């Protein structure tokens, strides 16, 4: 593992915790499901068919925005939200990294006990 790569991954750790937490909620998952088609949606569109208020939806959108899942784009007077797949790549990278470290450690254990 290169030092640079490790530092870069370490630096990303905190946002990553946010990413996991952002996905651990049914309402937010439903919002991501609506947005991941690629079309930006207004808050009204996202509130449609939901039992939640605009305020509640806005709150959930903020959590997703902080985790980097959605971006707010302004179209005239209206705010629209669009999906950003980048954090999902981040999780994959992190789990791949931890997984690769275990492969190396277990290979060392194997030669240690089999020698």
């Amino acid at each position, binding site marked *: 593992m290169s*030092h640079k790569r*490790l*530092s870069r*991954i*370490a*630096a990303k*750790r*905190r946002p990553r*915790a946010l990413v*996991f*937490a952002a*996905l*651990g909620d*049914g309402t937010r*998952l*439903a919002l*991501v*499901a*609506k947005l*991941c*088609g*690629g079309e930006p949606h207004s808050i009204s569109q996202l509130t449609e068919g939901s039992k939640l208020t605009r305020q509640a939806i806005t709150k959930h959108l903020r959590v997703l925005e902080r985790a980097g899942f959605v971006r707010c784009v302004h179209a005239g007077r209206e705010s629209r939200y669009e999906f950003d*797949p980048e954090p*999902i*790549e981040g*999780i*994959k990278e*992190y*789990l*791949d*990294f*931890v*997984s690769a*470290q*275990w*492969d190396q*450690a*277990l290979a*060392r*254990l*194997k*030669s*240690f*006990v*089999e020698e």
Partner: protein
Amino acid sequence: MSNVIEKRIELKAPVSRVWRALTDYREFGEWFRVKLDGPFVPGQVSHGQITYPGYEHVKWEAVVQKLEPERLFSFTWHPYAVDPKMDYSKETPTLVEFRLEKIASGTLLLLTESGFDKIPSDRRLEAFRMNDGGWTQQMKNIEKHVAQTP
């Protein structure tokens, strides 16, 4: 979708040998590349210093959970908490479990690391997928990487 890393490895050594390599703090340190201050005691924090070349500045800290002789060794930690300026203590730690099983050729070691925060459950993901046909390749990628075959 699961948030578990799982590894299976067959070791050509008796279970008692593998158990010692895992739970004797000096032997653990040899292959894991950490210099531990003292033996593993369930419920207690294990301290040490990483000896992996280039990472000697990194501290090792884990809380030993279970020591069930020749069967299960587990601890919680913050995986690869390598930045000395960062406070990892507020993050939820992950659980690392080593399970041993006797097999004809020696020992089967099953390693799992779980608890990478709140990943949506299988059921949620399933609902998610059915709700939206346009779900992206990225989600499939993450699923492939974190999903475990039962």
